[in-house]
């Protein structure tokens, strides 16, 4: 337990608590929602805070709290799926490109450059244009849009690692290409992507909300924060909380991911000793009284 706490503290407690909170809520959403997030009650539309509906209801009388909770699940599942697949595909392309080098590298990287030169949003829009809107189509579109940057990153990591003596020494010892790639290079590339992806997840969450806001992503009646914003816009004046609450949830999640990414990136960087620990060390030295 104390090791877990130490790891969490090194990453940064705010990041761990924020993301941990969203992950917990998202994972348990179907069981902790007070109401069915899709069941309508037109008699109780646009209600304010109450015991029955702690965060009120929307224009169709659906429980806002339940929809916020389910929305966290929708976003996190999409974010995790996109990252997982983009990481596998991009990581593989990048690792191969960096390892093989030469013409293969040139060809793959020009392809990736093309992908990177077009904004992810445009790529996603194009893919949705072909396959049509919808939750899983959106996930597919975002995966395709996200692959190039992960490929580029893992290629850079592998290209920097492959000529390091610890990899070269394996080659000299007669290690096979698959062993070097899958046991040594790929894990290095994946850990680099993971650090990048955790900060990048915030951007992904925002893109998901944007696509749904535009009606291209999550379709009604599925609960999603971008969707909730669209639904609430016409009632902005009479019940602004319906806009503020999903917006706030999204903002907090993005901040959480950014903090997490920063914490992971600096995880191994040397840090100065804390003031209290420093004082303890000084006292200890005095007590040892050596010289």
């Amino acid at each position, binding site marked *: 337990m104390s090791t877990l706490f130490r790891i969490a503290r090194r990453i940064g407690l705010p990041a761990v608590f924020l993301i941990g909170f969203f992950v917990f809520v998202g994972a348990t959403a179907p069981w902790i929602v007070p109401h069915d997030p899709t069941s309508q009650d037109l008699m109780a539309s646009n209600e304010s805070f109450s015991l029955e509906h702690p965060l009120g209801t929307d224009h169709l009388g659906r429980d806002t709290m339940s929809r916020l909770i389910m929305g966290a699940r929708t976003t996190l599942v999409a974010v995790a799926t996109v990252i997982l697949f983009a990481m596998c595909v991009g990581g593989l392309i990048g690792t191969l490109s960096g390892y093989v080098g030469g013409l293969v590298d040139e060809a793959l990287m020009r392809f990736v450059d093309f992908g990177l030169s077009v904004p992810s949003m445009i790529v996603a829009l194009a893919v949705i244009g072909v396959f049509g809107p919808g939750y899983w189509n959106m996930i597919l579109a975002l995966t395709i849009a996200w692959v190039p940057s992960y490929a580029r990153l893992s290629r850079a990591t592998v290209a920097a690692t492959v000529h*390091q*003596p*610890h990899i*070269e*020494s*394996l*080659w*000299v*010892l*007669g*290690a*096979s290409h698959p*062993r070097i790639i899958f046991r*040594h290079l790929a894990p290095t590339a994946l850990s680099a992507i993971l650090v990048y992806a955790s900060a990048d997840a915030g951007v992904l969450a925002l893109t998901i909300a944007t696509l749904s806001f535009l009606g291209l992503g999550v379709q009604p009646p599925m609960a999603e924060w971008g969707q909730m914003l669209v639904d609430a816009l016409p009632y902005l004046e009479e019940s602004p909380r319906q806009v503020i609450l999903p917006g706030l949830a999204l903002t907090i999640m993005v901040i959480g991911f950014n903090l997490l990414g920063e914490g992971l990136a600096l995880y191994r960087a040397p840090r100065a000793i804390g003031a209290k620990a420093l004082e303890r060390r000084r006292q200890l030295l005095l007590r040892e009284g050596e010289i």
Partner: protein
Amino acid sequence: MLSIENLSVTFKDRASGEDIRACDGISLNVEAGELVGLVGESGCGKSTLGRTIVGLERASAGRVLINGVDVLTLRGSRRRQARLQAQYIFQDPYTALTPSQTIGQAIDEALQIAGEHNARARMLRARSLMEEVGLPLDILERQPRELSGGQRQRVCIARSLVVEPKVLICDEPVSSLDVSIRAQIMNLFLKLRDEKGLAILFIAHDLAVVRQAASRVYVMYLGQIMEAGPSASVYSQPLHPYTQSLLSAVPDPDPRIERQRRRILLEGDVPSPARPPSGCRFRTRCPAAASICASEPPVMSIGEASAHCHFAGTVRLMPAA
């Protein structure tokens, strides 16, 4: 045991697109049970030569014979088998070990690669290797960062012995170690040479270390061998002006000698290997260069000690004041 004939290695410079000849027609040989030195300044191509022998760089021409077999002409698993006969020791023993593996895991992986499927046999072998290089067994449980430089280099040597090589290429294996520790590693190399009959090609810039350990020495400059011969004669009667200037630059730990010392200070920088000088490679910095040096490349004189110089043995550079 190791014989290199007319080996050339060419790189393409990414920025300028020029061909860089890191090694240009190198021939050398190392017998079993012999430690041979390869010295030269940084950028002369000595590391490239060593890396090409073990397959880390691609040769553009020439032959690399290990135990009489030309490694460069073989393909597939026969090439791998032949190549494994030569192992490589890197300069920096810290980066040569995977940081996340314990020493035991690193040795175990090398044994797996070598085809030992029995975990117990691997463990026993790892222990005997530790003993062979003079390390305590508890090192197997440790991470590379917990070890000193000397200990790490011993681990690297132990790992290279896994495949029972006949040839060891050592690329500056002690230059990143502390002076007082170097002797332990150097004596380990000498022991392996004598007890296992290893042919060791010892690549270094430290002339004094090479002199003490090597029976023969090759001097490289700008991709070519300038001088070759038994240590005794190369160090006492260097034939090539470049060898003479290198030797005159070696500092001595006695300040009284240092105060009397006069050095041959070479002018200018090493030319780019993309555009080597015509004729003799060393002529642009050679105080004794004549017009023939620019027009005709010198041939290697033949003899026990030989030099790549038109005036081999007849020039004796005088140190400047």
